[in-house]
C-alpha cells in the first residue's frame, strides 16, 4: 500500500529555514533524546548501517555459497567494471525506466480523470467505481500479481472481454501488461489524493473563469493544473519510488521474463544475488537503485517539507 503524503497548499517554513539553528530560543530539552532513541536506533541499525555496508559489499567478491561466502575480500573496481560492460544491467535499467515512466504517467492521468469525473457523477456511481479502484489499490501485491496473471491468460478476463480468445497478453506484450497492472494497483491512491486536492480548489475561481467565457481546456490549463501542481508532483515522485521497488507484482507475473523483457532492477538484483549466488554484485545493483531512489527522495523532501 502506498504511503500518502500530506499535501496541501499551506506553506510553512522553507527548507533553508529548517536547516538553520536558532540561537534566540531557550535551551534544548536534552531529555527528549530518550524519546527519540528507539526510533533512531532502529533507523540507524536497519537503514543507515545496511546502506553503508552495501557500499562496501558491492566492492567485494562475496558469494551466497562456496568458498567466498565466508572469506570474501575487497576487490575494488572489479564489480563496477563488470557492471559497466553488463548488457543485461543496461537493458534492465532501460526496462526500469520505461516501467517507472509508464506507471507514473498512468497513475497521474487515470487518477486525475477518475477524480474529476467522480466528482460530478451520481452517488451510486461514485460508490461503485470509487470502491472498485480503491479495492484494487488495497489488494496485496502477491494477490494482485496472481489475479492479473490469471486475467491475461488465453481464457482470462481480458481475452474474454475483448473477444480475442487464446491471446496470451502477458506473453505477447509483457512490459505493457506489467506496467498496466502497476498503474491499476496504484491509481486508487492518486485518485483519493487528487480528489481531495480538487475539492480544495475554490469554486469562485472556476465560476469567474466560466463567466469570462473560457473553454473547459482553458480552465484546466490555467486554473486547475497550476493549483494541482504540488499534489501532482508529490504523486509523481511517490508512485515513481513505489514502481522502482515494485518487486512482488512482476516477480509473481513474469519473474522478469520472458527473456529479460520485464526484468526491472530489483528483480535483476535479486536474481544476481540469490539465483546466480553473486551476493556482492546483487548488492551493487541494489546500490544503483538506492542512488535513483535518493534522487527521487530528495525532490520529495523538498515538496513535503513545505508543510512541517
Amino acid at each position, binding site marked *: 500500500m502506498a504511503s500518502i503524503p500530506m499535501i496541501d497548499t499551506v506553506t510553512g517554513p522553507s527548507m533553508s529555514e529548517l536547516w538553520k539553528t536558532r540561537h534566540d530560543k531557550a535551551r534544548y530539552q536534552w531529555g527528549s533524546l530518550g*524519546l*527519540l532513541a528507539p526510533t533512531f536506533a532502529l533507523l540507524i541499525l*536497519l537503514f543507515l548501517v545496511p546502506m553503508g*555496508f552495501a557500499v562496501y559489499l558491492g566492492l567485494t567478491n562475496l558469494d551466497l555459497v562456496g568458498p567466498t561466502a565466508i572469506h570474501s575480500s575487497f576487490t575494488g573496481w572489479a564489480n563496477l567494471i563488470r557492471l559497466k560492460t553488463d548488457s543485461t544491467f543496461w537493458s534492465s535499467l532501460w526496462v526500469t525506466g520505461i516501467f517507472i515512466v509508464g506507471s507514473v504517467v498512468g497513475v497521474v492521468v487515470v487518477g486525475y480523470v477518475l477524480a474529476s469525473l467522480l466528482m460530478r457523477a451520481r452517488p451510486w456511481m461514485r460508490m461503485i*467505481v470509487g470502491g472498485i479502484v480503491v479495492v484494487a489499490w*488495497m489488494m496485496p501485491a502477491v494477490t494482485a500479481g496472481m489475479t492479473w496473471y490469471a486475467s491475461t491468460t488465453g481464457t482470462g478476463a481480458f481475452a474474454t472481454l475483448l473477444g480475442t480468445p487464446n491471446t496470451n497478453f502477458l506473453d505477447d506484450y509483457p512490459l505493457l501488461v506489467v506496467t498496466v497492472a502497476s498503474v491499476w494497483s496504484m491509481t486508487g491512491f492518486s485518485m483519493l489524493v487528487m480528489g481531495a486536492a480538487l475539492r480544495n480548489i475554490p469554486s469562485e475561481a472556476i465560476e469567474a473563469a466560466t463567466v469570462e467565457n473560457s473553454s473547459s481546456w482553458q480552465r484546466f490549463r490555467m486554473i486547475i493544473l497550476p493549483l494541482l501542481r504540488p499534489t501532482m508532483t508529490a504523486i509523481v515522485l511517490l508512485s515513481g519510488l513505489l514502481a522502482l521497488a515494485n518487486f512482488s507484482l512482476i516477480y509473481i507475473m513474469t519473474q522478469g521474463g520472458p527473456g529479460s523483457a520485464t526484468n526491472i532492477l530489483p528483480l535483476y538484483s535479486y536474481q544476481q544475488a540469490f539465483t546466480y549466488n553473486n551476493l556482492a554484485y546483487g548488492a551493487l545493483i541494489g546500490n544503483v537503485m538506492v542512488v535513483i531512489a535518493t534522487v527521487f527522495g530528495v525532490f520529495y523532501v523538498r515538496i513535503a517539507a513545505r508543510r512541517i
Partner: protein
Amino acid sequence: MSEITDTRMIAPDDAATSNAPVMPPENLQTQGTKIRSATLHLILGALGVLFLAPMLWLFLASFDKNASWGVEWPHFSLINFKHVLTGSLLHSLWNSVVLAVISTAIASVAGVFAAYALSRRRIPFKGPLLLFIIFSSGVPLAIMVIPVYEIFSRYGFLSILPTAVFLSVTSLPFEVYLMKNFIDAVPTDLEEAARMERASTFQVLRRVVIPLALPGIAAAAIFGFVNAWGSFVVPLILISPQNQQPAPIAIYTFLTLPKPEFGNIAAYSLIFCVPVFILYVVSSRLFREGFVLGGGVKG
C-alpha cells in the same frame, strides 16, 4: 494514509459542468447537461469495468470447485475455503498475523515517542531529523534487503522475529510523520494542565496525548500492519525456516507446484485480502470522525 477520504463524501460540483457563458434557454441547458452527464457516466462505467476485470478471476475461481486460470461462471461450492483453512496453510496465515502484529507494535510504540518529541520538544538538529524522517518515509526501505540479509545471516537472524523488526523499520518513518502531524493538532492546554499537576512525561503521553491523538495513532498502526501483512520480498529473502513462512510465500509456493489447485489459490488469496479491506474501512471511518478534539478544552 493522511488524505484517505471516501469518494462518497465528494460534493457534486455543478459549476464545473456548466460551460455556458450566457444562460441559454432552460430546456436547452438541461438537454446539454443530460448528454454530458450520460457521457460522463458511460466513461466511468467503462473505467469501472476495466478496473474490475482483473479481479473477477479471484472472486469467481475461489467459489468454483473446478477452477482454472480462465474466467467462467463457477460450479458453486465452498470446498476451496475448507481446503485451505487447514494444516500448513492455516499456519502460514498465523505466521502473517505474528509478523504483522509484532512489527506494528514495535513501529507504533517507538514511533509515538519520536512523534511526540518531534512535535513538542526543543531538540538539537530538529529540522534535519525531520527531513531525514520524511526522506526515509518516501524511499522504500525494502531495497536494503540484500545487505540486511548478509548482516542477518552472519548473526543467525534469518527467522521471523528479526524480520518483523526489519519490517517495522520499513514503515516507521511514515508512521512517525503521520503521528507527528496528528499530535501537532492536539491543543497544548490539556498537556500544560497535566504538567501543573506534576504529571511525568509518560503520564502526559498515556493520559493526555495518546487518547487525544488516537485516530492518528490508529491510522499509523493500520498503515504499518498493512505494510507488513502484504510484504513479499522481505520474508522471501529474510525468513529461512519453512514453518515460519507467512501467507504471501505460501501463495507463491502454490504457483510453483507442478499442478496448481487454482480454486484453492484463489480462495486462500481472498482470505488473505480480507483483513486489509476491513482495516481500510476502519481507517477511512477514523479519518471521517477524525479530529473531535474540540470537546477536550472547555470555554
